[in-house]
């Protein structure tokens, strides 16, 4: 019984960490589906979102919920501007140019955050910090639960947005066929920038949800590398897949940290990623089947 409770605890913690990976991966996938670019700076955008929330809540003393919403909006606006000003210029350049461009942007964001907020870890008080919820024998941190609940809620909102609203359907249309979307009168370029905005907003949500569990610091963007594992497991192009992949990576990582000797936990996500590429490169939820000539 003791063991089962222990295992369940690990699984819940892993699922919470996995939801964060899943949210970052969701950002990759949204952008990849629409523009066939991969944003290597996604983790750093999450870091920026976390810092903006920290400024608003800890410095300007805003209420947690107001501050969080405002931080998400600011980060989303930043994502919009990023696409409209920089990324739009490299459309048509080879894919690896975009990889390097976003990687370089990530370095710049990290330095910018270092100048703006310093290189120390910071945190702010949330309604969930240091509180626990007891379910039967299980003692769970509310911070971990808040991540899982927040992720589920966000996914619900995104699902409704993409399937029910006019703009969401327009986004789906432009991801599927740009030219046809143009002909139907959809402003494809603005829509792409809006997708970048949503993706940045999702990253900000991840940063804010993560803040009670781990501190915000400049190097938190390296979580993005683990999120790649999540995205690849999901098939790089499937939104539910990225979340499932994230949870898988998170749980495997927690279990590896508990059952394997020290040092294995940090490489688990990478090993899972490589194993996935060798065994089933198209991912669990394959959507892309071939190439257009």
């Amino acid at each position: 019984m003791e063991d089962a409770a222990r295992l369940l605890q690990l699984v819940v913690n892993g699922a919470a960490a996995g939801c964060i990976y899943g949210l970052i991966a969701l950002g990759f996938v949204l952008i990849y589906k629409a523009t066939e670019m991969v944003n290597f700076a996604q983790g750093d955008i999450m870091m920026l979102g976390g810092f903006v929330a920290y400024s608003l809540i800890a410095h300007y003393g805003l209420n947690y919920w107001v501050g969080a919403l405002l931080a998400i909006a600011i980060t989303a606006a930043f994502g919009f501007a990023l696409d409209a000003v920089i990324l739009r210029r490299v459309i048509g350049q080879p894919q690896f140019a975009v990889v390097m461009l976003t990687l370089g942007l990530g370095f710049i964001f990290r330095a910018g955050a270092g100048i703006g907020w310093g290189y120390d870890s910071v945190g702010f008080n949330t309604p969930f910090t240091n509180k626990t919820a007891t379910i039967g024998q299980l003692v769970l941190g509310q911070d971990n639960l808040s991540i899982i609940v927040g992720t589920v809620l966000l996914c619900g909102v995104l699902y409704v947005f993409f399937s029910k609203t006019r703009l969401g359907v327009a986004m789906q249309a432009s991801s599927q066929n740009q030219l046809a979307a143009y002909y139907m009168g959809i402003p494809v370029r603005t829509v792409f920038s809006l997708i970048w905005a949503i993706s940045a907003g999702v990253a900000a949500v991840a940063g804010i949800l993560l803040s009670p569990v781990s501190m915000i610091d400049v190097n938190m963007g390296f979580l993005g590398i683990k999120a790649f594992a999540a995205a690849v497991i999901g098939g790089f192009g499937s939104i539910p897949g990225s979340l499932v992949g994230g949870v898988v990576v998170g749980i495997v990582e927690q279990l590896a940290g508990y059952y394997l000797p020290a040092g294995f936990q940090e490489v688990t996500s990478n090993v899972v990623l490589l194993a996935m590429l060798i065994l089933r490169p198209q991912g669990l939820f394959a959507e892309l089947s071939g190439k257009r000539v």
Partner: protein
Amino acid sequence: MRYLFRTEYRQDTSLARHGGDFFWYGLLLVAMIVIPMLMGEFYVGELGGVFIFAIAGVGLMLLVGYTGLISLGHAAFLGIGAYVNSVLLAKGVPFVITLPVAGLFTAACGAAIGLPTLRMSGLYLAIATLAFGSIVGTVFQKWTSVTGGFDGFPVPTPTILGFGLDGATGIYYVSLVVLIFVLWVTANILRSPMGRAMVAIRDSEVSAQSMGINLARYKALAFALSAGMTGLAGALFAHYVRFLAPDAFDVLLSVQFVTIVFVGGLGSLHGAIFGAIFVRLLPQFIAIVRDDLPFGIGRLPGLEPSLFGLVLVLVILFQPGGINGLWLKLKHWFTAYPFKRQTSSRRQKSYAKSERLR
């Protein structure tokens, strides 16, 4: 302007296009041979570092500039080459054997990682190599019985035919020879059907495949060759730093290698050399001007990586040809003088290419 007339069949297969090439490259070679006799130990060492980075840069150029794939894990290959070379040397194997073995072993590692990941689009290679680099970095740290972990690994002094290569000058000459060898191999590969196949893959995978090119084979071959050359560079790098620390081979170093290729100019061997010079000189330049910068910019801890990031972004946005592209424009201005026009170097309008099928 120079007009080339073909008068002999031999001209078609010669590496040098005309007499001027022989003259200028010969002059450069003589200068490189003479330099250690004229300059101080420090400058010779730095120039040796440039050669080592140029070797890795040529390897990466073959992959990124000619095959159109990107690797974010070349620091790991540099590390593998460095450790294989040093561990074998410490076991008493002569340097003449450890150097090629380091290259071949790294190439085998490259093939092993390339074969499974290259079945998918080139994007997966970037992600897989990023993961691979981080795994290899952890292995260097944890496998203390071989690598010494964080205590480091002192690199033994190599000897060639009884001569000990202990100073910067010895490594300088060995690096120069290896660099020339690597350039010669790459230039020849690029003229062969294999090189043509790689360029075809870069320009369009679909049309390359429809011409009967085995995509997975050539991509894996390019990746293995690239890794092997980086392994050679790693073996020399071990002697350049003389003391191996496992955390030297991190993502930042991989990004520096890719910066070599992008800043130098994609798709040209000259670019790999220009890029290596730039990447090696930038930290030196920062060190010199650090104290004179306004607003305390020089004291920021993340200055170097962010400058690399900034340069990368600016080059991709405004000068996709890199330093080599600038040089070609300058040369064109002189050779065509006074007929240079605004439109001579205008970029072609490019459109988004989709790789999807739906």
